[in-house]
């Protein structure tokens, strides 16, 4: 799985360069994310703008990354496609994870307090 990461202040922005996070790619995603977030960033922003769809395996992989980050560092999601939003809504995961409309909104100072 292709991931690009870039530091922006206290945020580490990780961009997923794949059109899906699913059963076929979830394990790779999890491994690559663990390598990508070795930084000390307080907030990890996962930019999913290139991702068209996600399934329950991909969702499980995202939860696994959140567990890896623990209580001190937060994983937040950015730019979800309609289909990805539907999966987060159906599983009620949208109630427990912060989702930002776009990267600009996600990194603006007010977002830190949310």
């Amino acid at each position, binding site marked *: 799985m292709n991931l690009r990461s870039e530091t922006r202040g206290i945020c580490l922005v990780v961009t997923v360069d794949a059109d899906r996070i699913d*059963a076929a790619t979830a394990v790779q995603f999890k491994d690559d994310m663990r390598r990508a977030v070795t930084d000390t960033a307080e907030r990890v922003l996962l930019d999913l703008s290139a991702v068209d769809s996600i*399934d329950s395996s991909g969702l499980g992989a995202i939860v696994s990354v959140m567990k890896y980050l623990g209580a001190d560092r937060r994983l937040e999601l950015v730019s979800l496609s*309609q289909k990805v939003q539907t999966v987060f809504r159906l599983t*009620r995961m949208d109630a*427990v994870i912060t989702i930002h409309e776009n990267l600009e909104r996600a990194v603006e100072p007010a977002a830190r307090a949310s």
Partner: protein
Amino acid sequence: MPPENHARQDTVRASAAVADSRIEISFEATNPAARRAIRSIIGQVEPGTVSQEDIDVLEIALAEVFNNIVEHAYQDTGRGQVDVAVEMRTPGMHFTIWDDGEPMPAGRLPGGAPADPSLDAHEQAEGGYGLFMIRQLARKLRYERTEGRNRLSFRIKLSSA
């Protein structure tokens, strides 16, 4: 991933009979073959007649059902066949899906569970979401183990665009 010799190009054999609104598709139990089967099934929906949200729901539900068979019934061996019968009956699609893999645990379809809002994000379960989504999206969901085969049937509602 399954061994190369199982990743055949043409594992989806659709005997399309759109006139009487019933199609049958069989595919090998691998993720790529399951994705092709989903594309074939969605291809049966006449463009513009169904809302994009319902198409998304159809795709999400089928992906979860097929993944479950590939990963659990056939335990990711990539060996085994999945047989699907699809009937178009307004206002939805009726599915019957058979496989020869392992039965469901305790012979029943597990319930699955959504995220728990009383817990932090990093305390959520890593699994159970697939079955929860299937149960939310599929109507008349029924699982049977008969003659050594798993049989799952359900209906997905499709509303007009």
